[in-house]
């Protein structure tokens, strides 16, 4: 007598969800019924195609630009991407920074500068920020943009190979905080607090090693620990890798 196979059973069979005895029953029925075999094959093929969805699907990338429309969301998405990449790439656990909104503003500011940046000659660092110069010179970066905002001063640096790096310095009465970095292929970000100032560094498409070395050098410089400056500058110069862009 021919067994009656329900659609539920056939689908569960295709999904490998039937117990062994029931699966054997369905398999026997399929072997003796070409139409049932065709249906099972169709289900298998559909399942395989759906299963290939994820392998073909590009994951969302960190936003490259911040359009006017939905800007607020893009900022949040950028923050999430930065944090996600950091969490995925870092070898040690990282907590989410608490000052996310400010971080998003900085990224937007960096992007605005990138979109408007033309060929600009080097400009001098303002008084009080001279300590930045040795680190940046050793890194091959030149100050080309200086913008005094209401909260932060935006320093824009340019490298020889289209590198663009932003440094934001904000007067902030808060305890010193160690260097925090989030590095991905698309966005690199570092932040620390020192000496009554908050520092934030942002770049896109900069070699992670280079970015990390510059951030470390600046962070150490901001702490005014000048004892090992020679070694630090040598380290930075050794990390002068080209931009990926």
């Amino acid at each position, binding site marked *: 007598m021919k067994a009656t196979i329900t*659609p539920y059973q056939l689908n*569960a069979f295709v999904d490998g969800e039937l117990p062994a005895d029931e699966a054997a029953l369905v398999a026997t029925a399929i072997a003796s019924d070409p139409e049932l075999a*065709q249906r099972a094959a169709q289900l298998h093929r559909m399942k395989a195609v*759906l299963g290939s*969805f*994820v392998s073909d699907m590009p*994951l969302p990338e960190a936003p490259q630009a911040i359009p006017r429309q939905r800007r607020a969301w893009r900022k949040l998405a950028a923050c*999430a991407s930065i944090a*996600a990449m950091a*969490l995925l790439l870092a070898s040690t656990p990282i907590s989410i920074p608490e000052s996310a909104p400010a971080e998003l503003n900085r990224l937007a500011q960096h992007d605005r500068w990138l979109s408007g940046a033309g060929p600009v000659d080097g400009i001098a660092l303002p008084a009080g920020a001279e300590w930045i110069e040795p680190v940046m010179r050793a890194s091959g970066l030149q100050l080309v943009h200086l913008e005094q905002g209401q909260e932060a001063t935006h320093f824009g640096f340019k490298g020889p190979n289209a590198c663009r790096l932003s440094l934001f310095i904000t007067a902030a009465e808060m305890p010193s905080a160690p260097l925090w970095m989030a590095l991905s292929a698309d966005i690199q970000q570092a932040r620390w607090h020192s000496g009554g100032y908050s520092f934030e560094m942002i770049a896109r498409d900069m070699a992670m090693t280079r970015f990390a070395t510059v951030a470390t050098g600046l962070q150490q410089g901001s702490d005014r620990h000048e004892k090992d400056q020679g070694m630090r500058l040598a380290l930075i110069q050794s990390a002068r890798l080209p931009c990926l862009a």
Partner: protein
Amino acid sequence: MLDQTQQALLLQTRRKLFGYACALCSDVSAAEDLYQDTMVRVMTARTTPDDSAGYSLWLFRIMRNLWIDRLRAEGRLPDFDDSAEIEELPQSHGGDQVVNALAVRQAFAKLSKSHREILALVDICGFSYAETAQMLDVAHGTIMSRVSRARAALVMQMQEQENVIAMPLRRSARRFGEGG
């Protein structure tokens, strides 16, 4: 804070998570938003499951809850009708029928939200019926019937595009471009 095991799991799962988001949402932009929202929730969660299986389910459940929240806010909650029975799968059209990827994907995009979701969890994300039942908080048998109904709907959709699915992939793409 995520520990290293959780980071590794998130790394392994993120593609499937995005696949699930794409299945739930009507367009890629909305899926990206949902995916990013989920990541933010995951990374700011105060507590996380300890075991890897629980962690994976937890990730997808966060995404699903966010999706439902959005639909609820828009007054567009999906209707999960588990009462209907299906007697048979739709008859195939016979012959040397080729189920090509383009046809399946187009048909999948036209399914209802609830059908897309169940197929996303089982076929795209690879969850077992038991895991899916746990995630959706329904009985094992309910998953079985939802999967059957969703696949039947998928076959129906594909048959509406019979000129696409009844030919080899390379030719179908050309013919489809010509409007059939």
